[in-house]
């Protein structure tokens, strides 16, 4: 029977540990909050990873890693768009553009990156399809899981801490009212500047993450840093529809409400 369950009960790190120890062969399918990921394993080692429905081809992976120039990438798209990843790999090696190690290293980094993204998924379901492997025309790797598991455990701890600090991404950010602080004198990374440029009580943290193409962990990390430095504070998003108003006072009349609070004050004083 295929292994299946819920990420709330079984984390990605625990799943990788199980696959590693049991030296499993097959594909782990994870249905996350907004995407589906496929991780293929051979004898407990990561062989292939894909997120979403679209397959990211070798040419795209190498181009994004600056291993192919824009000209080379364009030429491949025009002349060799129909060939498989394996064929393309052979072509690049035979033409002397890249070595076999270059290609495998980039694929390993890309697949490991997908696994890292999964560490931030805490909601969703999974199932493991025994013996199911990617099609033969894809290039697979053999990546030991131990380092990924250790990194995943670290990220999980960090993720839990960051979630405690920033429980909701539906809140907005505003700059703190500290006249002494000049943002220009603060050393911020490029990523932090990108986030800072969107800080406005009108934008939720989730919207900033979407605009800057950051995942939940990345945006939480940056926001946490800015909060700790006292540069920003969390606020309710402006213009957001207020939370459904439940009646707080038994009366709508403002004077009666004030009278009610004054009666409460007198009563508490008399206790």
């Amino acid at each position, binding site marked *: 029977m295929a292994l299946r369950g819920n990420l709330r009960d079984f984390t990605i790190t625990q799943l990788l540990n199980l696959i590693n120890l049991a030296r499993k062969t097959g594909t782990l399918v994870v249905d996350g909050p907004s995407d589906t990921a496929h991780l293929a394993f051979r004898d407990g080692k990561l062989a292939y990873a894909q997120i979403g429905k679209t397959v990211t081809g070798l040419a795209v992976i190498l181009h994004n890693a600056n291993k192919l120039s824009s000209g080379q990438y364009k030429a491949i798209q025009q002349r060799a768009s129909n060939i498989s990843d394996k064929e393309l790999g052979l072509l690049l090696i035979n033409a002397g553009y890249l070595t076999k190690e270059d290609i495998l290293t980039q694929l390993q980094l890309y697949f490991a990156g997908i696994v890292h993204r999964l560490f931030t998924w805490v909601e969703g379901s999974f199932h493991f399809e025994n013996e199911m492997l990617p099609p033969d025309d894809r290039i697979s790797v053999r990546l030991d899981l131990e380092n990924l598991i250790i990194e995943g455990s670290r990220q999980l701890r960090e993720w839990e801490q960051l979630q405690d600090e920033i429980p909701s991404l539906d809140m907005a950010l505003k700059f703190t009212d500290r006249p002494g602080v000049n943002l220009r004198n603060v050393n911020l990374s490029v990523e932090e500047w990108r986030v800072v440029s969107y800080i406005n009580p009108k934008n939720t943290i989730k919207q900033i993450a979407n605009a800057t193409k950051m995942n939940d962990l990345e945006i939480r990390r940056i926001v946490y840093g800015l909060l700790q430095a006292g540069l920003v504070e969390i606020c309710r998003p402006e213009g957001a529809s207020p939370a459904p108003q439940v009646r707080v006072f038994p009366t709508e009349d403002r004077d009666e409400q004030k009278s009610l609070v004054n009666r409460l*004050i007198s009563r508490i004083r008399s206790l």
Partner: protein
Amino acid sequence: MQTVKMVVTGPFSAGKTEFIRSVSEIDVVSTERKISTAAEKAVKEATTVAMDFGRITVDDDLVLYLFGTPGQKRFDFMWEILSEGMLGFIVMVDSTRPETFREARSILETFRAYAPTPYVVAANKQDKKDAWDPEDMRHVLRLDSKVKFLPCIATEKSSVKSILLELLYSILAEMERGEK
């Protein structure tokens, strides 16, 4: 009969049940259960799993209910339900357990997100010798100077009264601001 409610929240073992017990005119309706984990058992024997419930009758026509939230995170699904329609809320922080300060901050943010009602933060167990100084706690909790952060001893009625009064003054001030 008119009723209003206030919520007392905070991390595990912050003193929420004691707080309500000190001023409630009825025996606090508590849903305490024996603690199952060894780490938490080292702190106290029983904890609130659903809510505490206390009552203060104001007059023939008005009753104030005090609801205490469960402190353990695995019961946080109760928080939003309890926060509905609250007049204001009190965040209790155990001054002797700095390891809970971060969680207190997180609970405060969560309740602020539920409802934009006034709140105060109480630095409980200030009578204990290893209690942190409230000013140091304010920094760690990253509380704005405008937020009322008050020393508290939840077992003393006078201390609890002053916390409730400060919250009521904040509610009144907020209403007056809203009129301008």
